[in-house]
């Protein structure tokens, strides 16, 4: 299947494949009819994280933040010096920085390497030697959005923010939320479908380093508001469904649920969902179109059997569905 090569102006035209979790029924439709897939009383939970421009320059290449800095510290992944048109898997091994070394990001921001991961020497922890305000200013003045090699043109900040982006915790766009524009939200409301938010720091999707990619997603922080905990409880009590808008919401809710009854507040999760996962909160998921063998596919296996998923992928392929961040969507429900 082909990726969507540019952001789409109006997501209502995006294709949507509604996939039943229990039988092999699939329904082809568009985001304009998204609300019809739900019943009154269902709850959709979105990730309201804004996306920060996470790509920076080191003296020897590129550096991508894995997460938004907290207390002046963040993990990051080193890349070689290459044009963004080069696919991530084709990037060469970059020159490395040992623990204790210092360098300048974008010839401006002094950073110290406080740790080099045992997973890979490309995965490092940085300490930014500056104030919080100056750090955030540096990020937005010098950072570039993480680019995807299959896109026609560079992404700008305007392209990577969802309609409800709030705190910049994500380094790549939590893109399922992109489809929930005002008119879609209005239709959901008319259908009696509720919306709630949480914030999750979506990390990098790929690095080209096999060891890091196997380990992804690494720990990502989240925050669940009290109002969302209440909304989920009420939804469950009346027998309605909780639908995650995106994999990041799924990881936040199911990761939080591993620790016990859901409660409001902050946490960190590195939960990797798969076929053996027991879903405790989420009943369905809206996600991008992914092909067999990707880690996203593994997460979808938590929702449905490989027979159901394989058939869905076949239908999507035959119908020319577009893949990746600005592509079409699957709703597993």
């Amino acid at each position, binding site marked *: 299947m082909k990726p969507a090569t540019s952001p789409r102006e109006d997501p209502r035209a995006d294709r949507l494949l509604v996939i039943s979790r229990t039988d092999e029924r699939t329904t082809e439709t568009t985001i304009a009819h998204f609300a019809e897939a739900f019943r009154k009383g269902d709850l959709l939970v*979105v990730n*309201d994280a*804004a996306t*920060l421009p996470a790509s920076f320059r080191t003296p020897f290449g590129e550096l991508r933040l894995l997460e*938004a800095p907290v207390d002046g510290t963040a993990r990051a992944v080193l890349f070689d010096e290459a044009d963004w048109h080069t696919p991530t898997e084709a990037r060469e091994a970059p020159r490395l920085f040992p623990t204790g070394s210092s360098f300048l990001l974008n010839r401006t921001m002094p950073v110290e390497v406080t740790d080099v991961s045992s997973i890979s020497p490309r995965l490092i922890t940085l300490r930014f030697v500056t104030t*919080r*305000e100056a750090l*955030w*200013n540096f990020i*937005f*003045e010098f950072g570039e959005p993480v680019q995807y090699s299959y896109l026609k043109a560079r992404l*700008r*900040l*305007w392209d990577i*923010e*969802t*309609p*409800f*982006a*709030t*705190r*910049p915790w994500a380094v790549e766009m939590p893109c399922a939320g992109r489809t929930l524009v*005002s008119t879609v*939200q209005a239709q959901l409301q008319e259908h009696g479908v509720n*919306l*709630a*938010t949480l914030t999750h720091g979506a990390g990098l999707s790929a690095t080209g380093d096999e060891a890091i990619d196997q380990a992804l997603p690494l720990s990502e922080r989240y925050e669940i*508001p009290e*109002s969302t905990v209440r909304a989920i409880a009420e939804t469950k009590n009346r027998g309605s469904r909780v639908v995650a808008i995106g994999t990041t919401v799924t990881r936040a809710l199911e990761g939080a649920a591993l620790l016990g009854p859901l409660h409001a507040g902050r946490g960190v999760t590195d939960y990797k969902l798969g076929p053996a996962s027991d879903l405790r909160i989420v009943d369905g998921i809206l996600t991008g179109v992914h092909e067999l063998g990707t880690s996203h596919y593994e997460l979808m296996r938590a929702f449905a059997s490989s027979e159901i998923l394989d058939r869905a992928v076949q239908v999507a392929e035959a119908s020319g569905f577009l893949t990746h961040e600005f592509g079409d969507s699957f709703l597993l429900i």
Partner: protein
Amino acid sequence: MQIRGTGILITGASRGLGQALANELAALGGRVVLVARTLDDVHEAANAILARSRQAFALAYDVADKDSTHKIAAQAQALAGPIDIVIHCASTLGPLPLVPLLQTQCEDFQKALETNVLGPFRLTKALAGSMELRKTGLVAFISSDAAVDAYPSWGAYGASKAAADHMARTFANELQHTRVLVIDPGEMDTKMHSDAMPDADTSKLANPISVARKITTLITGKDNIQSGSRLTLHAGSV
């Protein structure tokens, strides 16, 4: 509406009404993000608030610049948390000195539209989507009687303020949970006023500090002013 602990973004905050509002809302415990074009001025205004042990963050950006929109919204929320109140004070007169429309440079009119209409539009677009989902929020547009009365030589400014007022009312009709208000603060003793009318008798002009207090009282008051309302302040009353 609660101010203590609330994220508040104010444009045009380095002087005049914007600065007075920043001071007032910070004094009430708001986490205020000040936006203005000049780095030194906006930092000075924020530092004055910090010196009084209140919370303030400074962002030096021109709201007329499209690329600044998400830089402002994201940094503001990285520093102050979710923004629940936005007050659009940043404003430009357009041509200076003020001249009739036939004499107004096209670029000056364009500048007035960019700063007074499109800038607030883009910032509201970047911030109100979040407010809607969180079912809270207030967006206030600072207006002028020039938006209503077609004063000669105030054409570019007046037209842009009229456009902003109309846009604000449309937002109010579209947004369910975010309150949108238009506020005409009346004539105040500010640099903008002296730029427009250098020979004015400043003793007759309202002090922006007292205007900021009135506006704060209105937006936090018990009689929850309806979204879409246009409030006009005169010296001494509403």
